């Protein structure tokens, strides 16, 4: 089944917006350490996902497992525009959001393996990473459901006078849920500091965007609510960080919500048992040439903030950490039967 040719990144950054973008200047410069740390987190996420893929193939993981390969700059670039005090919430493709908000790879693997040492004690699995300590509010399995929750988190921060912004992540397919539209209207009407980050990876399961959404430019959904909508490329960490910074500043200073549609691509199938007949191998290969991790790697090397040798050894360390985390998780016990009945009521 042929689908329309997918737009490839051009390096243009912001591609379009419903209204002129406000000018809050450039995002604050990152320190050398910060930049390397974001690279490390993206690399860690990729290695974590690759290991998860293997673990799924060998039967260590049951149920769904939605991998983030190809989309790493979305979570990293947006997170890097705010602090760990700003709430974030996402859907089920949540490993990156968890790992980049303080969940350690050991408990992250342990959750996939259903162990007692998992991030949520083996109760939630792949789709339900939570780390409230670092304002990571899930991990949600019902498409679109989190869009109203993100609104509520942002509402609460405003109510409490905290001057924060909530990034609420969702897939392109989720724009078709009614809850999202109700949330958009509420956000604009009540001036709630929530940014809806649409991770447009071109597909909702096997359905290409042009087959699931009447307007294929998803940021335009904001128009119906007189909201600011922005579309940007998202394979380059710095592009994502800059546009996220602008919208976050606006949200903080003016309590204004926005839609941020980030154009990205998922390399793997939707979940694990997806024959991917809806796209060609060539299409995937084309996109792999615009790999977010490669792009940032080349940049930080060119900037001279780290040399090849040190970067190699950093990567080597991450790979070892992932193996160790996997081993640790596998050696962890399963939860006791009594855990079935805990955590139901507060």
């Amino acid at each position, binding site marked *: 089944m042929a689908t329309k040719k997918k737009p490839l990144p051009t390096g243009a950054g912001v591609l379009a917006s419903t209204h002129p973008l406000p000018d809050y200047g450039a995002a604050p410069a990152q320190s050398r350490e910060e930049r390397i740390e974001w690279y490390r987190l993206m690399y860690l996420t990729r290695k974590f996902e690759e290991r998860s893929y293997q673990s799924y193939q060998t039967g260590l993981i049951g149920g769904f497992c939605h991998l983030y390969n190809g989309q790493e700059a979305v979570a990293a670039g947006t997170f890097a525009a705010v602090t760990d005090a700003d709430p974030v919430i996402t859907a089920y493709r949540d490993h990156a959001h968890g790992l980049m908000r303080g969940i350690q790879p050991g408990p992250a693997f342990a959750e996939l393996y259903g162990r007692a040492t998992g991030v949520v004690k083996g109760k939630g699995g792949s789709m339900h990473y939570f780390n409230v300590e670092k304002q990571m509010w899930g991990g949600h399995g019902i498409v679109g459901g989190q869009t109203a929750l993100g609104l509520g988190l942002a509402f609460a921060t405003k109510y409490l006078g905290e001057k924060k912004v909530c990034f609420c992540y969702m897939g392109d397919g989720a724009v078709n849920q009614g809850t999202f539209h109700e949330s958009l209207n509420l956000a604009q009407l009540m001036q709630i500091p929530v940014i809806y980050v649409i991770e447009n990876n071109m597909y909702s399961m096997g359905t290409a965007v042009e087959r*699931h959404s009447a307007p294929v430019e998803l940021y335009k959904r904001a128009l119906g609510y007189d909201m600011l909508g922005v579309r940007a490329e998202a394979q380059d960490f710095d592009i994502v960080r800059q546009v996220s910074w602008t919208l976050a500043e606006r949200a903080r200073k003016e309590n204004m919500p926005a839609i941020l549609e980030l154009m990205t691509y998922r390399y793997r199938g939707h979940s694990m048992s997806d024959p991917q007949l809806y796209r060609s191998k060539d299409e995937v290969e084309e996109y792999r040439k615009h790999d977010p991790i490669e792009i940032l790697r080349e940049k930080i090397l060119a900037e001279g903030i780290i040399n090849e040798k040190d970067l190699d050894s950093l990567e080597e360390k991450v790979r070892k950490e992932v193996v160790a985390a996997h081993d640790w998780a596998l050696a962890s016990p399963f939860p006791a039967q009594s855990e079935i009945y805990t955590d139901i009521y507060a």
Partner: protein
Amino acid sequence: MAKIAYRDAVRDAMAEEMTRDSRVFLIGEEVAQYNGAYKCSKGLLDKFGPDRIIDSPISEAGFAGLCIGAAMYGLRPIAEFMTFSFSFVAFDQIVNNAAQIRYMSGGQIKIPMVFRGNSGGGHQIGATHSHAPENIYATFPGLKVVVPAFAADAKGLLKSAIRDDNPVLVIENEALYGRESEVPEGEYLTPIGKANILQDGVDLTIVTHGRSCWTVLEANQELLKMGIRAEIIDLRSIKPLDWPTVFASVRKTHRLVCVDETKPFCGVSSQVAAEVSRACFDHLDAPVLRVTSVEAPMPFSSALEDECIPNVARIIEAVKEVVA
């Protein structure tokens, strides 16, 4: 009789009814080009084309309501939920519109349509994706609810549901899609509201439905070895429920164990136990026992999940207790 997989029985039912009646169409997420997330509509797009096999965006409330409106106007839609867990996004459409409009319009309107999709736990897909909602929907007068356990009924009940002039929920089960069982040759319908006796027995009655039928049959192997001959009833239809068959069996065996995957509180088994204790009070020689899902959300871990839905061990334990 030929053996076919449950998912193929579902597909055959839809294909036969769509051939028979041009007003029947199918809409749902990934039902057309992807052939169904669980391949229940395999080949139907090729056979019937995109006007009748329709891929929907992820808009459960929207496409459920579309079907209800189209049914009001005289079409006979089939709405597929990728799983019934997602039907809760469309809950208002189903319980306020599909269930009530006929009554509220003083009988002017009928809503001849089907909501179908899988349900149930056991696949490590967590609390939000593992609901067995037949008891919930069965509480709304105006809705019919059927839960086929075998390929023959997956086909026969779905065909009846498509021909029914009321909204019928056909609640399938993911675990059963790949299981093969015998299906009669040629045209047939399984009547809605008629239970099926899977095994005659004398020592006790086991009332079950859906996936639990398979678990009960597995437990039955053990029971037979223990010299216990249970009468096993597959309800097939939850609303309406075949009370005469259930009562007649309990009056014969004097003992009852109910097994089903809904929750223990206000579940299908609670309803059966309540009705039996009234209708068969003088015939009961033991308290009615229930083996159901447990009073907890569905945990992800396989180590916990297996305990949360009816399993062989819990069934045998309950049977031993009522026949003791």
